[in-house]
């Protein structure tokens, strides 16, 4: 009834091509942003911001990065966590070794370093596809973690191979409180998400999708395969790298290379599969599902089922329920939560008179 575009006439190309062509969508997005920027820091307590929302945003960004590569450009990757590690360690080293390095520039440099590494490991994609490419990116996963452990230079010769993120400071303002860190992460994620949305709507995104759908045909119509694929690897790794830097600086503080292991890569992959492959909003929905649901289950088990089951059973029960829910959602909607969201919007357009 309220959500429909009847009466909204586009009289210019500009109006037709904007990101959210429907007025209600624009209002909705602005509302969400207002809540995220203003209401959340005021209303939510430290636990929510520090332990739930910051990791959710960071993993959303990583999932967004992988979604660009896998969802839009069709290149399967199992190395996202490793690219995050490159971002984190590169930012750390830029901060450490360059005097007076501004933190935001260090994040960008971290992202760019990840992009360079991403391009290097994206080279095999010119020859191999699908599962075989996944195996090649698996090599990136193991190689990068190994290299960061092996060569002490990366961790400034710390005896145990870990890095401790330096203090974040912009124009003298120190990001110490949970709220300030949250706002910093949120701003970066919003900016990059907006950039991603625009990228996939532009010629770059169309080239990616053409390659994804059929690379021979794409080549025939004049899309440069090498350029397009490597660009996808670079952009995707950049996003993962920035996410990794934020993970180290705004969330964990002290990170070890082992923390960016294959498990994390799989988690990010599951995020986009559950959330929706080839969808920006899907990255956020998937991250919410994978990051928040296990925590919610654990809270439920500890609060409500305390003492009913022996502890080992209740811990395993969480995994069983979590796995069950993944299967449930994949059966109900194989295209992910983003597709459910879209269907919901379609239905809302016709509501309350579907016929």
């Amino acid at each position, binding site marked *: 009834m309220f959500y429909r575009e009847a009466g909204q006439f586009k009289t210019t190309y500009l109006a037709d091509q904007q990101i959210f062509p429907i007025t209600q969508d624009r209002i909705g997005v602005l509302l969400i942003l207002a809540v995220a920027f203003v209401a959340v820091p005021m209303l939510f307590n430290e636990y929510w911001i520090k332990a739930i929302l910051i*990791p959710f945003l960071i993993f959303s960004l990583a999932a967004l990065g992988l979604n660009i590569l896998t969802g839009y450009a069709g290149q399967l990757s199992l190395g996202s966590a490793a690219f995050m590690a490159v971002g984190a360690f590169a930012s750390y080293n830029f901060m450490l070794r360059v005097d007076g390095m501004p933190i935001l520039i260090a994040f960008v440099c971290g992202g760019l370093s990840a992009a360079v590494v991403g391009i290097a490991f994206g080279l095999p994609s010119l020859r191999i596809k699908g599962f075989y490419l996944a195996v090649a990116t698996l090599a990136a996963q193991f190689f990068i973690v190994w290299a960061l452990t092996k060569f002490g230079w990366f961790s400034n010769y710390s005896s145990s191979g870990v890095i401790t993120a330096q203090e974040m400071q912009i124009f003298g303002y120190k990001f110490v409180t949970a709220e300030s860190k949250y706002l910093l992460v949120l701003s970066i994620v919003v900016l990059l998400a907006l950039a991603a949305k625009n990228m996939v709507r532009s010629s770059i995104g169309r080239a990616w999708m053409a390659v994804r759908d059929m690379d021979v045909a794409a080549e025939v119509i004049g899309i440069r395969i090498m350029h397009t694929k490597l660009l996808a690897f670079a952009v995707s790794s950049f996003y993962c790298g920035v996410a990794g830097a934020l993970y180290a600086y705004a969330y964990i503080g*002290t990170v070890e290379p082992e923390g960016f292991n294959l498990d994390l890569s799989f988690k990010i992959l599951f995020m986009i599969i559950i959330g929706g492959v080839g969808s920006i909003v899907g990255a956020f929905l998937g991250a919410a599902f994978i990051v928040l649901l296990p925590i919610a289950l654990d809270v439920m088990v500890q609060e409500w089922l305390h003492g009913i089951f022996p502890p080992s059973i209740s811990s395993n029960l*969480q995994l069983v329920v979590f796995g069950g829910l993944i299967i449930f959602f994949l059966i109900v909607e194989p295209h992910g939560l983003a597709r459910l969201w879209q269907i919901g919007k379609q239905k809302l357009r016709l509501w309350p008179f579907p016929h």
Partner: protein
Amino acid sequence: MKISTTLIAVALLAGVVGDTMAQANEQFIGLPSYRVGAYAAGGSGIYGGWIDYMTLINERDGGVNGVKLSWEECETEYNNARGVECYERMKKKGSTGNSVFQPLSTGITYSVLDKVAADKIPLVTIGYGRTDAADGRVFPWVFPMITTYWSQATTMVKYIGSKEGGLDKLNGKKIAYLYHDSAYGKEGLAVLEKQAQKYGFTFVPLAVAHPGNEQQSQWLKIRQEKPDWVILWGWGVMNPTALKAAAKTGFSREKMVGVWWSGAEEDTIPAGDASKGFTAAGFNVAGANYPVVKAIQDHVYKKNKGNMEDKSRIGSVYYNRGVVHGIITVEAMRTAQAKFGKKPLNGDEMRWGFEHLHIDAKRLKELGAEGFMPDLKITCNDHEGSGKVKYQQWDGKQWKVVSDWIEPDREMVRPMIEESAAKYAKEKNITPRDCSKEG
């Protein structure tokens, strides 16, 4: 989709709201446990033993000076991000907030290292974590208690020396170091290299890639190098694999010495007969005959309040390690209560208790833990407190103690700790505390 997110939100809210209702006269201890995943054997044993000891204190003594212990578990899955979530979730629970955080994971230790100082919660890491945190001047909030990896490495050399008939006999010998190729495995490298210089033995480091179920090339190398001893610095599946590979290679298990994360029943039983004769370090010993373990049987399991489902694990290495965690936590609380009064204590007060913890031989006897764990004395300067390690040998069925408590080579380890801590302090702009001014 919408319904499910609403449900999650409601559930989370319920969880956060629910925790404000805690009893007033209870000391809350948050347990970031892990009972699923690859390390579940360690997690369930250690947290099980720890919970059983706290239950014992509540059941037998009515708490610590009348203050009952309460706790809640939070499943970390041995995952750093989940560990941080657990830390934040439990931070404000109980009447005084979480009073101590012990994650049993080096990764989670690093992840919360900066946070504990800001939140004033002591971080106690018994037998793992950041070694240089033993310098309490730089790390007031971190307690790598009893003994560290570096201390352990020096006791290993001492133990091998005693088997060779004296440390001077090590000259010209060859010791291989078979280690898990990770931050954890590399902990032993620098110390052992220095020990090799000091005692004149040849040191052969051999890295094994995670998870460690592939060791053929390393054992081929051992066959070529013919070391006199092999130090096994393994974790999880790497340990039984190494023992089996040694049996296949024909390397005597009597000449293999393991780290304390290689020396549990879960490491030897899977390798079967190949484990017989293998020796491993430990800051606690195995066995159910110690009075403290018997007391748990009497006061906890007879009332059916025990935490372990598999009761045969009571008295195993991991279980007893959990009891040690319990003893240290409770004794620190007792110490702090003597200063701050018999009430639930906050993290700051508990930190004082840990820093002034002194469990001497007499106290160990009173606790029924004589020979079960070493005596220890923590000071502002020294957050390690003991460094002593015992060696146990697997006789095919159980662990048998084969050495007394071995002192570490403090003259070598302590300067290394101070050097590393000073580097950290410089990087983080920390001014080390002046311990002569601490109360």
